[in-house]
């Protein structure tokens, strides 16, 4: 396993480069194949045939950002859980107890957000 470690990961970079190249080449090919005839009405945004009123880049519901904050909290927590889960059997019991305490604190946070109505879509 160990000697091939570095090389294994280089495949990711090659797939990234190759994937971008594939999309680029295909879009370029499509560009050559297609019949292009731009027009003023054609390049307007589509709102079911009605003329758009007002700019779409407006302030959005604050609720989205609240959920995004909660998401960051829990996603980071999950990232912590993965290495712990992998080594669960090899670690002393203390580590299990520690993670249970950590999760309990987070669950308390979720319960608090719940109580304060942050989980309610208004």
């Amino acid at each position, binding site marked *: *396993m160990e000697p*091939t*470690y570095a*090389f*294994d*990961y280089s*495949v990711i970079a090659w*797939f*990234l480069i*190759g*994937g*971008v190249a*594939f*999309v680029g080449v*295909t*879009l370029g*090919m*499509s560009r050559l*194949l*297609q*019949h*292009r005839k*731009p027009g003023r009405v054609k*390049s*307007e*945004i*589509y*709102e079911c045939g009605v003329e*758009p009123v007002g*700019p*779409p*880049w407006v302030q*959005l*519901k604050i*609720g*989205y950002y609240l*959920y*995004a904050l*909660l*998401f960051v909290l*829990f*996603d980071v927590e*999950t990232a912590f*859980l*993965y290495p712990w*889960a*992998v080594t*669960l*059997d*090899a670690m002393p*019991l203390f580590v*299990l107890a520690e993670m*249970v305490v950590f*999760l309990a604190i987070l*669950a308390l946070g*979720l319960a608090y957000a*719940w109580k304060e109505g942050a*989980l*309610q*879509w208004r």
Partner: protein
Amino acid sequence: MSALGILGRFAAMLVLLLVNGVVLIYMLRKVLGRLHLRIGPNRVGPFGLLQTTNDVIKLLTKEDLRPDSADAWLFNIAPYLIFVPSFMAYIPLVFGPTLAVTNLDTGLLLAFALTSLVPLGVLMAGWSSNSKWSLIGGMRAAGLQIAYEVPLLLSALGPVMMAGSLDPARIVAAQSGVWLGFIPRWFVIPQILAFVVYAIASQAETQQTPFDMSEAESELITGFANEYGGMRFGFMYLAEFSNTFIVSAIGTMLFFGGWQLPWVATPAWLAPFVFIAKTYTGIFVMMWARGSLPRFRVDQMLSFCWKVLIPVSLAWVVVWACVQRLWPVVAMAVSR
């Protein structure tokens, strides 16, 4: 691995992705058609088999418009950001005992990291289009897809704990053999709760119907992809089907023993077919759900995720960790 080796693997995965796209689009139309008591495509070629091929040609030769008011730079790169991660997510898949793009110690984490980039591309596409429908679709995607990512990640922890590894090959290998002489050692049996959470969350992650808020056809037309046409749209559509394949394949590896047949040893040549067959069975079930269930409302979906799925999966992680870690200790104490 030589340069040729990398090129070969790259080409093989690209072909698999494209074939998956063509087959899955045809399959979706046929399955949904049957579920809705329609026939589905049946005009182009025998049984309508050439329908998707024709659609690809149509998409390739279609003018891809960009609205004048759109943010050109973000609008152009959004399809890359949606498609490329979903293509890269083929790297950690394990097709057989010695058949995979590469062996990664952290392959599972890589797969989840890559699939979690999709909402970013969707949000980018929605915002840069400068259209109200697109923006609403993009924001919903940001709010909902990321929310369902948490239970998805938490539900995968059970199998990870059981296998003690993030390497998909080892997770699959840990599921060989039988329990009690006749139950295949598939993690779905002890982890049934985690699997249910995984199935629901992956349906939401791939924006399939009970949870397809970000494109909600009847309200937002096609949501975030509204202003996209031609091959740019084609790539987004392809990525969606590719993601469906990925989540089903990861589910197969985590819960259903990957490429292994139950009870009997799997010959190496049969392994990839077993893997693909299991994955397609998973996709069929997802399509079945898609054809049978009505769409949730945004608030129902969010509260279901935050108030049911996340607490349940968190509790399950704690319960399973205690069971797995304390079982040997208790067993030893009892036997003494």
